[in-house]
């Protein structure tokens, strides 16, 4: 279940605040001194590994984290914001049911009608050459029943990625295509979140839907995401740090009540495609990074998939007990995003081979049916809203702005069992 974020502040932020109040250093200013004191204490211990205290999530300037929550940055439900005046998108069977041939016949039983709707839907999901349109969405026409968020001043979660607020009439930022920015939940302009425009009128992306609860799968351990910080001298203000983004090679550790546990050790995925670093900084407790290309694992129906984000940047608060909360924002390449979320065309087996066609086809068509969209609709809507990485030849954008809301808790991130064991020995011996 997605965490119940509210517009003005999150429940967990309130929790953090109350926790800070327990310490004698609640404010930033005092917190700064607090941190300084702590680091003086740490440094005085030399290289032996530092304080073993409640809040010492940074040791020798390094810290690790595991994502404890992730979801797409979207908005409140369309019903509340009025973002979808034409209603929600439809599945192929729903579309077929609106055609004359799709109407229920007199005396037709529920079962017969459902079977006929399925058949009719399948015909709509099949291309002119008999191809499966989920696997070949480019062969289909744009779906008029696939609705998207088109108004300008719709509020959405996220940050201003490209540094340009479209409402000011300014020229598009380099490496982007013209698009209407959204406004932030607190009214701030310039929010780049075209992915929300694409999926915002899908019922599965409303708060009651199933498309934004993929973090529960993370808690089963099938995939996970790690972060690291290095070169940290001060957790409130530090103008130069290194941030690592890795896929987790270990399942996340949970409490008996299924809450992720802090300070577990995780191995980062050794595959370089799933490792990235970026330069960053902390300003008044807010951690931001320069853009970097990241890629994480994902699974659907036992197929291995990939979750890429180009020019991704982290913008998040870092609390004094080591909790990170904020946005991971960037541009998702359209074809890969379509595969991740709708088509599964590149789904692999655990042996690393392309999954059987029937599995990919059934999964994508089944998902479209259950979640209430069409593959062609999603595919063409992605292209229609693309705002990043214009093709040098055609000038058409090939990626789309997309943001995740993430929370992370302290963890130990190691590179390999052997190397890390040595590293650890040097950390704890003197």
């Amino acid at each position: 279940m997605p965490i119940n974020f509210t517009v003005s502040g999150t429940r967990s932020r309130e929790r953090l605040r109350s926790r800070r109040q327990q310490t004698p250093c609640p404010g930033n200013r005092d917190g700064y001194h607090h941190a300084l004191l702590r680091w003086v204490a740490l440094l005085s211990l030399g290289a032996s590994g530092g304080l073993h205290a409640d809040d010492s999530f940074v040791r020798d300037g390094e810290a690790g984290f595991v994502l404890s929550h992730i979801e797409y940055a979207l908005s409140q439900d369309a019903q509340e914001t009025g973002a979808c005046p034409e209603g929600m998108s439809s599945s192929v069977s729903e579309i077929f049911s609106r055609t004359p041939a799709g109407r229920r016949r007199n005396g037709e039983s529920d079962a017969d009608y459902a079977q006929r709707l399925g058949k009719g839907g399948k015909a709509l999901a099949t291309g002119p050459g008999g191809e499966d349109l989920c696997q070949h969405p480019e062969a289909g026409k744009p779906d008029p029943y696939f609705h998207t968020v088109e108004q300008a001043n719709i509020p959405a979660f996220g940050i201003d990625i490209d540094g340009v607020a479209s409402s000011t009439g300014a020229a598009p930022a380099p490496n982007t295509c013209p698009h209407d920015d959204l406004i932030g939940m607190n009214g701030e302009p310039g929010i780049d979140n075209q992915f929300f425009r694409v999926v915002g009128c899908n019922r599965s992306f409303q708060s009651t839907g199933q498309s934004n609860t993929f973090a529960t799968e993370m808690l089963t351990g099938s995939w996970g995401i790690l972060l690291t910080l290095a070169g940290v001298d001060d957790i409130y203000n530090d103008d130069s740090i290194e941030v690592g983004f890795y896929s987790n090679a270990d399942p996340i550790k949970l409490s008996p009540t299924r809450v992720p546990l802090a300070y577990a050790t995780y191995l980062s995925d050794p595959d370089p495609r799933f490792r990235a670093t970026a330069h960053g900084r902390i300003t008044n407790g807010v951690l931001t990074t320069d853009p970097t290309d990241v890629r994480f694992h994902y699974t659907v129906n036992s197929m291995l998939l990939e979750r890429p984000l180009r020019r991704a940047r982290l913008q998040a608060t870092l609390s004094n007990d080591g909790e990170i909360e904020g946005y991971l924002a960037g541009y998702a390449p359209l074809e890969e995003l379509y595969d991740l979320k709708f088509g599964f065309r590149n789904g692999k087996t655990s042996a690393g081979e392309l999954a059987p066609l029937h599995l990919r086809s059934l999964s994508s068509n089944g998902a479209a049916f259950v979640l209430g969209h069409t593959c062609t609709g999603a595919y063409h809507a992605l292209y229609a809203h693309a705002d990043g990485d214009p093709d040098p030849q055609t000038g058409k954008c090939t990626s789309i702005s997309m943001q995740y809301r993430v929370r992370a808790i302290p963890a130990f991130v190691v590179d390999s069992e052997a190397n890390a064991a040595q590293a650890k020995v040097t950390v704890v011996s003197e």
Partner: protein
Amino acid sequence: MKAWEKATAPGTSWRCRVGRFLAFTGICLFFAQAAGCGDGRPHESIVEPQPVGGPLLVRRLTESQYRATVADIFGPDIPVAARFERGIRAEGLQAIGTSESGMSPFGVEQYDAAAQSIADAVLSEGRRDQYMPCIPAAGVAFDAQCAALFFDRYGPRLLRRPMLTGEVDRYVNLAEQGNARLGSFYEGLKFALIGLMVSPEFLLRIENAAPTSENGGPRQLDAYSMATRLSYFLTNSTPDQALLEAAIAGDLATQEGLARQVDRLIASPGFEKAVRAFFEDMLEFELFDDLAKDPLIYPAFNSDVAADAREQMLLTISDHLIKQDGDYRDLFTTRNTYLTRDLGIVYRLPVATRKGWEPAVFPEGGGRQGIHTDIGFLALHSHPGRSSPTLRGKAVREVFLCQEVPDPPANVNFSVVQDPSSTNMPTARDRLDAHRTEPSCAGCHKIMDPLGLTLENFDGLGAYRTRENGAVIDASGSLDGTEFDTPQGLAQALHDHPETPRCLVEKMYRFAVGRDTVWDERAYMDYLIETFRTNGYRVPALMRTIALSKNFFVISAEGTPRDEFTSTGLQAQEGGRS
């Protein structure tokens, strides 16, 4: 039997037992001077005093001994499907409880179930070939000879002595009756084996005296009872074939022959199991069976963490004492440990190894030093939802220093103690101050709390903390005159406490013989302690000293009421074939 300690201060209350160590420190100092302080080598002038010994005992096998015995005789893959009764703790040790506990109907029911699962497996179609010394002849109603060979082989192993005259026949007859009713040789054999494994002489170690020695010296255990004591003390399991043979051959009667066996057992893999069995007993690890923590307050706790916390201490102990042959006292100051990933979460330390254990060193200055700061100790002596300086102080005193802390007086007015969540008294120290200032509580709490409060930087699960309810924790305290304000200070104080090695020696000897020590054995205890000291507080050396000492095998004058019976009654059925 009169407890050694009880007699030390006649007329004084039990409540004063904590002060007992002072009396012994005197003796200890005397010896230290006489022997020329700690040159680390066994001193020639240290000789074992005249043996005193103890009574013949009937000791029940512990669960771990039962399991090890079955594994040694039939193999480790034989299932023991039973739920054992929990051992009784007497005088601080379950080992002493084995000489006192009875056997309830439930207990026998469970032994019977265990015997069934073992016999089922041993004589199952797939496995029987590896156990059967013969193939039962086909075409006869019952191959009694083959059945006899089976009991010739396993009877002595299970009963730890040669079979008595007619004893094999008895089990063969049972097998034959079973065969007649069930129409299967192996089914008959199986039930006869169950009978053997439910027999009191398998489940109980019934000790026997050797015939009166001709030179009129003190009586001692017969060779098989000696072998059994040695084996369970040094390997926590049944005598192996070589030890039984040495017993039959009379080797244990000579000091050289005895030393050969003792050294062989100490060098065997079973020795580590014995050391572990001792510390499991000393550290009261049966409490792990009841250990529960509130999942909301301690989310990192689960049954895997509990199992790992237990194993962590045993790994640390056996590595330090056996592999490193380290000084026992250093167990209270060492930062060397072993971790799993699950433990790493509680200790907040990285553990690269994905499955299993890796050696680790607790960070210096991090508060963890000594096995008493392992979560296995801290969590065990806490409440389900919070720490307990009182329980921890009591445990340190009783477990490591052999000081008995009296029970709280029954009718205390506790109303002086305020609400634990009160903002006036955020920390345990604040709350316990009330106890320590209330006269009726102060006597005991002054003994426990200053010690336990130094461990308050560890919460009820044992995770490090600097604050409780927002207030900074003051971890200062004292132990019998030594003051400190960190867990490291406590570590050093425990390391240096004169009672620390003395208590270990006391418990080890009582563990070995399964009874409390008696007043007349004080000279022997001083001998052990002094040898322990001159050997640099090496535990394997201490166990060797005990195993080689006369006192270990001698039967005290009042302990030989069974003069009717001697091992002359043990006539090996076929000339000591076993």
